C-alpha cells in the first residue's frame, strides 16, 4: 500500500497537466470535432513531459535544488524574471480556471450555479494548503482523480466503431467541415497543456517537500513513467468517448456536462457519478498544484523559505504568495469570464515560459557538479533537444494560430 501511495506525486502532477478543467473540455471538443485525429499529439506530449519531468526529478533528488532555483542561477535575474512573469500568469490564471472548474463539477452534482461555489471552493483550497500535510493532499486528490478511469470503461461499453477510430488516429488532419488552421490550433493547445511549466515546478518542489535524495531516484522515475502516461491515458479516454458519441452526430462539445454524457450513456447513474467525482478531484488537484506552484516559483526566484514542510509562520512570504494567488484567481473568475476559455489564454504566456524553463533543466541535467555520474545519457539528451525545438516552434506558432482561428472558433 505504501508503494502505491509513493506514486501519488507523479499522478497528481500529471492530472494537473492533462485533465485540468481546460483540458477535460478541450479533449472532449477535439474528440467531437476532429475524432481522434489528435491522438498523436497526446502521445507526443506524454513523451515530452516524461523526458523533462524525469530530468527535473533527478536533479532535485540528487542536488536538493528545485527547478526555479536553477532557472535563475543559469539564466540570470532578468531572463528569469521574464520566465517568472510568464509562468506566474499561466499558473494564476489556471488556478482561477480550476476554481471555476471545481464549481462547474459541483454544479453538475447540485445544479447550483458554479459562481456561487467559487468562494467556498477557494476557502477550502486555501485551508487545505494552509493546514493539510503535503502527502495527504497528494494522496487524496491524486488518487481520487484516477476515478476518471471511468471514461476508459465507458469507452469499452460503448462498442465504438474501432476500425473508424483507428483510421482517424492514423490519418491526422481535419475532417469535412473543419480547416487546417483550427486543427493545428487544437494540436498546439493540447500539446501545450501536456507540457505546462507548472508541472515541472510542482514535481521538483514536491520532490524536495518529500525529502527525496539520490536513493529515491527509482521512486522519482516510477512516478514519472507511471504518472504521466496515466494522465495522458485519462485525457485520451475523454477524447475517445467524445469522438465515439458526439463526432458521428457532428455535434461540438463546449461544456463540462457534455463531456460527462458518454459516461452516463455507457454506465448509467453510477458512471455519471464517477465522472463528476473525477472532474471534482482532478480540478481540485489542479487547483492545489497551481496554487502551490505560484508560491514555489516566486519563493525560489527570490531565495525565500518555502514549502509545506515548514510552519506557515516560518515561510510567511511563501504563504502570502499562495494566499494572494487564490484571491487573484477568484477575482478573475468573478468577472464572470468563462473558466474554460480562461485556460486557453494561458497558451500565450506558456509560450514565453516553457523554453526558458526547459533550457536550464537540460543544461543542469548535464552538469557533473550537480549530478556526478547521474548526468543525462544520450537518449535523454536527444529527447531533451528535440522537445526544446518542438516547444520553441509551438511557442512561435501559438499566437498567430490563436488570432487566425479566433481561439479555435473557426
Amino acid at each position, binding site marked *: 500500500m505504501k508503494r502505491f501511495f509513493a506514486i501519488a506525486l507523479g499522478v497528481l502532477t500529471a492530472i494537473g497537466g492533462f485533465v485540468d478543467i481546460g483540458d477535460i473540455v478541450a479533449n472532449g471538443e477535439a474528440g467531437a470535432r476532429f475524432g481522434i485525429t489528435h491522438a498523436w499529439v497526446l502521445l507526443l506530449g506524454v513523451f515530452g513531459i516524461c523526458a523533462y519531468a524525469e530530468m527535473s526529478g533527478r536533479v532535485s533528488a540528487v542536488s536538493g535544488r528545485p527547478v526555479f532555483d536553477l532557472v535563475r542561477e543559469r539564466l540570470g535575474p532578468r531572463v528569469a524574471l521574464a520566465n517568472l512573469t510568464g509562468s506566474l500568469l499561466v499558473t494564476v490564471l489556471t488556478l482561477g480556471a480550476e476554481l471555476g472548474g471545481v464549481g462547474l463539477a459541483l*454544479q*453538475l*452534482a*447540485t*445544479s447550483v450555479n458554479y459562481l456561487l461555489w467559487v468562494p467556498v471552493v477557494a476557502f477550502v483550497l486555501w485551508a487545505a494548503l494552509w493546514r493539510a500535510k503535503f502527502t495527504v493532499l497528494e494522496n487524496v486528490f491524486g488518487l481520487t482523480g484516477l476515478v476518471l478511469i471511468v471514461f476508459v470503461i465507458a469507452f469499452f461499453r460503448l462498442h465504438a466503431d474501432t476500425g473508424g477510430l483507428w483510421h482517424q488516429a492514423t490519418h491526422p488532419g481535419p475532417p469535412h*467541415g473543419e480547416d487546417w488552421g483550427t486543427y493545428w490550433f487544437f494540436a498546439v493547445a493540447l500539446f501545450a497543456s501536456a507540457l505546462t511549466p507548472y508541472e515541472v515546478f510542482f514535481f521538483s518542489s514536491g520532490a524536495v517537500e518529500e525529502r527525496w535524495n539520490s536513493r529515491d531516484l527509482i521512486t522519482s522515475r516510477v512516478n514519472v513513467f507511471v504518472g504521466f502516461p496515466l494522465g495522458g491515458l485519462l485525457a485520451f479516454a475523454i477524447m475517445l468517448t467524445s469522438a465515439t*458519441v458526439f463526432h458521428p*452526430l*457532428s*455535434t*461540438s*462539445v*463546449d*461544456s*463540462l*456536462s*457534455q463531456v*460527462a*454524457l458518454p459516461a*452516463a*450513456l455507457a454506465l*448509467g*447513474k453510477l458512471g*455519471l*457519478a464517477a465522472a*463528476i467525482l473525477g472532474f471534482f478531484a482532478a480540478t481540485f488537484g489542479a487547483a492545489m498544484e497551481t496554487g502551490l506552484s505560484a508560491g514555489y516559483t516566486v519563493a525560489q526566484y527570490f531565495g525565500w523559505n518555502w514549502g509545506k514542510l515548514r510552519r506557515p509562520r516560518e515561510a510567511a512570504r511563501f504563504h502570502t504568495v499562495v494566499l494572494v494567488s487564490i484571491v487573484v484567481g477568484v477575482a478573475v473568475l468573478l468577472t464572470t469570464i468563462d473558466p474554460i476559455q480562461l485556460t486557453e489564454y494561458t497558451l500565450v504566456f506558456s509560450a514565453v515560459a516553457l523554453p526558458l524553463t526547459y533550457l536550464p533543466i537540460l543544461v543542469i541535467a548535464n552538469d557533473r557538479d550537480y549530478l556526478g555520474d547521474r548526468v543525462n545519457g544520450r537518449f535523454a539528451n536527444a529527447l531533451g533537444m528535440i522537445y526544446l525545438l518542438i516547444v520553441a516552434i509551438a511557442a512561435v506558432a501559438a499566437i498567430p494560430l490563436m488570432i487566425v482561428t479566433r481561439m479555435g*472558433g*473557426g
Partner: protein
Amino acid sequence: MESPTSTTSRIVIAAVAVAALWAGLAYDVSRPADARRYQRTLVQAAESAHDAAQTAALVGELELAGKVTGLFATAAFDDAAKGLAGAEQKSASQGPPDSASAARRDELGPLLNAAVTALGDTTEADDDNRLRDGVGRLKDVAARLDDFAEGMR
C-alpha cells in the same frame, strides 16, 4: 551599454508597431459586414444551436432511460440553454448587408425559436410522455439546423 538614442528609437518603433496592430484590429472588428462574413456568422449560429439541441435531446433520452440524475439533467439543460442564447445573440449581432443575407436570416430565425421552445418544454416536462415529445422535437429541429448550415457552406 547601448546609447540612450537607440533605446528611444527602439521604444518609438515598438510603439508604432503596437499602434498599427491595434488600428488594424479596430478596423477589422468595426468594418461593416460583407455578405460572406455575415453568412459565416449565420452558419456558426446555426451550428451552435444544432449542438445545443442535439445535446439536450441526448440528455432527455438519458433521463428517460434513468441514466442521469435530475440535478445533472437540470445543469445540462442549462448549458444547452446558454448555447442557444449564444446562438441567438450571434445571429442578431449584425445587420444583414444585402437582401439575400436577410432571406437567410429570416430562414434561421424560426429554427432558433423552435429550438428554444422545444428546449423549454423538455426542461419543464414533468412526465415521460412530454419529455419524449420534447426530445423528438429537439431532434427534429437539430436536423433542420444541420441542413441549414450544410446548405450554406
